[in-house]
Every structure is written in C-alpha cells, then in structure tokens.
C-alpha cells in the first residue's frame, strides 16, 4: 500500500523546520527513548528486543552447519535478514519480501559484516568440510519510525549474546560466540528541508531522503546507505556524520550496560 502523504503534513513540517522545531518537541539531533532487552526468545541461540519510542523490533540468532565455499575452506558465514510483515503497520502488505525489507536486511548485514566483529575463520569446525553458518533474523513488530536503527541495534545485541549450539549438532561443547566489536547504526531523514536524527513515523511520512550510517567501536564507518528520492551536500553529510559519532557511542554504551547486568 502506497501511503498517502498529506499535503498539510509536509507544509507543517516545513514550517516547524524553519524555527528548528519538531512535531514531538524533540531537538534536531535528539533521539527517542531506547530500551534493550537480551536473551528474550526461548528458541533462539541469541536474541534481543529493542524499542525506540513506539517502534518494536526483535532479532534472533540461529546456527547451522554447512560445507564451506571451495575457495574459502576455513571460513564460516553470516547472513542477516529482516522481515517487514503486516503485523508491524497497516502499510505493510503480505506477500514475498518487499524491496524495502530486503534493503533493510542488507544494510544491517553490511554494517555487522564489514565491521569485522565476526572473524569468519572462528566459524570453522573441520576445514574444507564443516563450518558454522550464522543467521540473524530481524522481526519488526511495530513501526513508528526509524526501524533501521532499531533493527541494527537488535541484530548486534542478539549476536553478542549468542551461544554456539555445538552440543546439539554433536560437534563439542556449547560456547559463547566471539564478537569483536559493537557496530551501531544512526539514521537521519530530511524533514522540512533539513536533516534530523531518529525520524518518527510522521517525519518519515512527510519527509524526504534518508541516510544510514553504521560506525564501529573506533568511530570508523562500515556501512552507508542513502535511500529515497533526494540529494544532499557534502557539508550536510559532514554535520550528520559528527552527530552519528555521538549517538552511536551512546547506544554502544547501552549495549555494554545491558551486558554488564
């Protein structure tokens, strides 16, 4: 279903932007409240639930044993997928995975993969014969804006709690998956002409292009995605890149705090 964009909403967002205000009263670079809960799915080997405002996302990690690719006999694999099922919003329709859900899964996948937090050689069981395949499935249950950041956070938090089920597959004792880093995503949407952090549902509806930035522990960028119609300048990017550094560091602390408990 193509969502109706009310002309009044776009007009009002422009009016608010002119005085640097937002619909819900937040500052331009202010995020909504975030909660993170881990080990919350009984049958997953690692799991997390993230809420950002009214957005709710679950991620679950599963393992399988497979044969390695012939050219990489010691390397396992990682795959991350997202489903935008109709449970999450009236706008989502049943059917095969939409381009939107494929994009979402792939952007989260790249951020985790390219950060190098999983050493694929760690996933080798018998070189040339058996390696672990890790699958992170992300399930969006309620979309009230900025599902990208929620999915990114849920995926890495779930991965960081994962236990490799070696016993069930008869290849040794269970052990904690080694994860070297916490890549975090920060998303920005152009609303009323300027970029804002953590768009709400209304801001996404009445906004324009979006930019997703995934940063590693050292602040290095590991994945970028520009989506939807619109263009931006290097100066605009420089500004949000700086904000992303702060917001990602805060969320990384949240993951660390959760793990400390």
């Amino acid at each position, binding site marked *: 279903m193509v969502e109706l964009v009310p002309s009044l909403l776009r007009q009002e967002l422009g009016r608010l932007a002119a005085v640097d205000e937002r619909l819900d009263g937040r500052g331009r670079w202010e995020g909504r409240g975030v909660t993170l809960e881990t080990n919350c799915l009984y*049958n997953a080997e690692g799991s997390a639930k993230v809420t950002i405002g009214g957005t709710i996302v679950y991620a679950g990690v*599963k393992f399988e044993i497979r044969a390695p690719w012939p050219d990489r006999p010691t390397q396992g694999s990682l795959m991350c997928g997202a489903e935008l099922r109709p449970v999450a919003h*009236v706008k989502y329709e049943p059917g095969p995975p939409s381009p939107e859900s494929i994009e979402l899964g792939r952007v989260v996948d790249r951020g985790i993969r390219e950060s190098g937090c999983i050493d694929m050689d760690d996933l080798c069981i018998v070189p040339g014969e058996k390696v672990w395949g890790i699958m992170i499935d992300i*399930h969006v249950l309620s979309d009230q804006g900025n599902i990208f950041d929620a999915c990114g956070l849920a995926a890495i938090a779930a991965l960081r709690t994962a236990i490799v089920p070696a016993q069930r597959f008869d290849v040794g004792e269970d052990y904690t998956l080694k994860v070297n880093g916490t890549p975090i995503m920060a998303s920005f949407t152009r609303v009323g002409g300027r970029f804002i952090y953590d768009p709400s549902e209304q801001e996404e509806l009445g906004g324009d292009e979006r930019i997703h930035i995934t940063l590693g522990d050292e602040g290095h960028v590991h994945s970028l995605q520009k989506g939807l119609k619109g263009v931006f300048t290097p100066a605009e990017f420089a500004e949000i890149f700086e904000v992303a550094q702060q917001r990602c560091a805060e969320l990384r602390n949240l993951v660390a705090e959760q793990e400390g408990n």
Partner: protein
Amino acid sequence: MGGYGDVQLLREDGKRLDGRALDEMRPVSIEVGVLPAAQGSAMVTHGLNVAVAAVYGPMEAHPRKIQRQDRAVIDVRYNMAPFSTSDRIRPGFNRRSQEISKVTAEALESVVLVELYPRSKIRVEIEILAAEAGTRCAGITAATAALADAGIPMRDLMIGVASGKIENIVVLDLDKAEDNYGQADLPAGILPNTGEIAFLQMDGDLSPDEFNLAMEYNFKAAREIHDIMVNALKQKQQRGEA
C-alpha cells in the same frame, strides 16, 4: 502424532515429566496493547510459547473481489518467526501456516459480529516468536485479546486450548515432548460464555470417551484462560492497578 508410544511421558507418581497433574495447564499470561502501531494488540505467553497479535481495521477491503456485500471478511495471517523453533524456519510460503490461518479466520468470523461491517476487512496478524507445542492455540487467544483491545464487537472471547493423549491417558495442554511422542492432540477454540466451539482440529487416536474427557479438559482450561484475559484487558484500562 508420531506414534512413539514407548517414550515415557508419565512419572511413577502419575504426574507428567514437568510435574503437572493430568488436568493442569502450563502457566498462561496475557498482556494487552503491546504494539503501539496497531489498533489492537496482545501478547500471550503459554508455557514457553510466545504469540503476538495485531489487529488493523475494519478498513476498505482490497482487492474488491474479496469484498462481501453482507459482512466483513477477516484476513488472518499466522506466521512463525524464523527463530521461533530450534531449527530455523525459512521465511516464505508454508502449507501449515496457510491452513492454520484459514481455519483461524473462519473461527474468528463466527465470533466477530462481521455483519456490522459489510464490504470491509479486518486484518488479524499472528506472529509466533517462540514455539513449544500449542502455538495455534496461543495465537487464537492472542488474536481474540487483540480484537477486544481494538474495540471490535464479538459474541464472546474465543480461547485457544488443546488436550491430548499420552501413554493412553488423556491430559490437558500437551508440551513439546508430549506433542512429539503422544498419541493424540485436540486443539479447540472455545467460547466460554456461550459454551460453543468455533475452532476444532485433531490428529491421532481417541476413543469417544477419551474425546469427551479431552473436551471437558479444554472447556475447563478455556474458562481459566478467559479469566486471565478479562483480567489483562481490565488491567490495561486501570493502568495495571487491578
């Protein structure tokens, strides 16, 4: 039912492996209004099963060919999340989910006052986040609570429960081992106030007497879950002070 009759499912003291009595159900908890984007929603935890349901509508029914001139159609999707079982489920088309969705929709159409909303559609989305035998029943219970939360008129609250047979003995609410190695499973959607049955499936082997006892257990459990649901609905209206 696998028919693995030789697996021991009852202890020497006559209780089940998890310590439950024959007519004892697993713990059930219900929370209403859990999904902010939905018009109505609920989460049901039944033993280790976790089912979430969202309701959207009534809304204009599209495509037009699914419209009914005399009533609303209920469009149910029952789906198991990929991580809900010990072996990952590949997302996509699934015969089992399609069948459960169909009969659940028909059961709900017998409970919701669909004739009040001709030509429209009510969407009911059931997502299973953790599965440990009995997900269709947890899904029915979640769907009902979500419909009530959305203000959709219904004749009664439909409760999903199952009884079955293990080691030739009828028991209430099979867990995973009992479901895998038991001899029968009888899931039902029960209307505790009217005393009617709107959803019924069964597989395995039951004598007429065993069937009657299994249904008796189902009705008993449905009344218990009904009270939990009423409490959960009222709690939401009283900010958890009930």
